[in-house]
């Protein structure tokens, strides 16, 4: 062996080994699908060119993906907040509600056309380490009974959510995107805007476009090209959006009618866990990394009215192994006008103790009983009980035939109590 070669041998071996491990270190480098990664940038949606908080077909895509590509999106919490583990109730009243909800996207799915449907398979959700649940004054199902701010800060792991403010409780990890959908087309924007304006005119709760805080600013901000037409993300609509349906778990496939070419897929507002109803107005709200895969159903949107979901055992997997259930009927005190019907200005409702075929009143009846039960049986405060109900109590329709008393039940997942678990 030449002297020169012998001298260089260690260096050659080092380079060779490095090259080998760089090229085939482990399974990481063995790929079979194209990955489209949209990572979060900056602290808030306004800092992130891949983030929007309004809906309009003129919002340009932040990425393109082919059907079958693995699409990974970094998402933000529902309020685009700066809440942290040490946040207190006084921090809540300083939240800027014009920033709700930051969505990651839209992603243009190559080949999709208006009139098609988009099937979105939820592959994975990787949660942040912090989440929060709020009682927001003036908001939530029992907003007339809970009028003060309250916050629970959660520490999150893949096993469950725990909080110093909720001792003895571990909420199982059952994450899903609270908001997921596709962009509306121009006809949908005009139709939805008109119907919501009519509702607002009648005194109902509907939110007109709000350019202040609207993103992307070039389209939806005060000087934006479509400032007056960018829809708020708060109500879910036929394009999906803020549906808050906990059965949309990893493994399920969500199907959306496409209203624009490319569909314009967006995701955000991930919930670490939520009860059916999300009664306080918030779930365990988190940022997360969400991975999905999309496919096109040609012409599939034609027969669709709204999103649909298909799955296998995902619903079974989030069911409690033990539970307590209350039964709600459409009953109330004489003289009480439930807050959700005040805009109808009915003179009949106040005097009645029993309303007819009223699921909302039955749900309220069941929920109030459940909160009473949680306080009496498990020693939580009324605020803690309301928070727990928001993240671990399911409001369920029992029946809609036995007039006048339709039934809604409230089902508490008793698995959340550490005392029942090993």
């Amino acid at each position: 062996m030449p002297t020169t070669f012998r001298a260089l041998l260690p260096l050659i071996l080092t380079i060779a080994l490095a090259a080998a491990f760089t090229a085939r270190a482990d399974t990481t480098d063995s790929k079979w699908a194209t990955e489209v990664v949209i990572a979060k940038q900056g602290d808030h949606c306004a800092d992130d060119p891949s983030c929007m908080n309004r809906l309009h077909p003129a919002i340009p895509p932040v990425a393109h993906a082919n059907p079958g590509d693995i699409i990974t999106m970094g998402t933000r919490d529902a309020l685009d907040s700066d809440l942290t583990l040490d946040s207190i109730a006084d921090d809540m009243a300083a939240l800027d509600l014009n920033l709700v909800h930051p969505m990651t996207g839209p992603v243009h799915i190559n080949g999709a056309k208006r009139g098609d449907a988009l099937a979105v398979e939820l592959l994975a959700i990787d949660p942040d380490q912090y989440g929060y649940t709020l009682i927001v004054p003036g908001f939530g199902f029992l907003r007339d009974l809970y009028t003060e701010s309250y916050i629970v800060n959660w520490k999150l792991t893949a096993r469950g959510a725990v909080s110093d403010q909720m001792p003895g409780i571990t909420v199982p990890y059952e994450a899903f995107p609270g908001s997921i959908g596709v962009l509306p087309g121009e006809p949908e924007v005009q139709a939805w805007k008109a119907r919501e304006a009519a509702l607002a005119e009648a005194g109902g709760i509907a939110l007109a476009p709000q350019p202040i805080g609207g993103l992307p600013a070039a389209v939806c901000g005060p000087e934006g090209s479509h400032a007056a037409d960018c829809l708020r993300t708060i109500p879910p609509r036929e394009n999906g959006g803020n549906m808050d349906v906990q059965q949309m778990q990893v493994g399920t496939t969500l199907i959306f009618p496409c209203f624009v070419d490319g569909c314009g897929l967006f995701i955000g507002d991930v919930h670490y866990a939520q009860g059916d109803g999300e009664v306080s107005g918030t779930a365990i709200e988190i940022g997360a990394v969400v991975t999905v895969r999309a496919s096109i159903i040609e012409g599939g949107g034609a027969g669709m009215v709204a999103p649909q979901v298909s799955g296998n055992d995902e619903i079974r997997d989030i069911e409690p192994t033990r539970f307590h259930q209350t039964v709600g009927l459409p009953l109330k005190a004489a003289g009480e006008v439930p807050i959700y019907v005040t805009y109808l200005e009915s003179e009949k409702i106040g005097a009645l103790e029993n309303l007819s075929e009223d699921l909302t009143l039955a749900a309220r009846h069941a929920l109030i009983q459940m909160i009473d039960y949680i306080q009496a049986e498990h020693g939580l405060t009324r605020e803690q009980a309301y928070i727990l109900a928001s993240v671990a109590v399911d409001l369920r329709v029992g029946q809609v035939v036995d007039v006048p008393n339709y039934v809604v039940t409230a089902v508490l997942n008793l698995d959340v109590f550490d005392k029942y678990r090993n």
Partner: protein
Amino acid sequence: MLLGALLAGMLGAVAVPAWAHTPYRQWQVYRQRHLVIGASREDAESYPKAKELQAFLEEHLPDASARVARARTLQRLADLIATDQLRVLLLSLGDAEALMRGDDPFAYAVPDLRTLARFGDHVLCARTEFPDAHAWILAWTFAEHDRAGQPTDLPVPVHTGVELALAGEPMPPLPDDLEADASEEVEVPHRH
């Protein structure tokens, strides 16, 4: 209960015209049914001072139902008051002037910012649209209990309602939509 009844009327009644500017009308109602004082983490003194002010108002103007909102940044306070999501801020003298002018750390100006009261190096501020009657009631209460310093030589002009109160003028009329809440048996307070 003269002040109490007036404040009860003052709260919440302007929700309807303002709600279109906010995403959650219900939350807007809350923010107007309470006298929510905005403070900021960036100004560490502002939050404890705002809490002291809340305690004072709970004692002397309980129907104001005072609350404190603690924003993470000063800019957030600007965003909230500029979009009618908050109506009253507690700012340092320097921050108040900067907000009125749009100087650093603020991204834009709120030129119609006005002083409601001075507390040492801080001022309670609102925009000119904050009703004169409400400003008058606050100023009258602070003065009656020697709670605030004289609002003189301030970088931010004094609110008209405060000027009237400190000049001994009677309380300005309530906004039209509040008149129904101020019953005839309520006496309008005069500063002695």
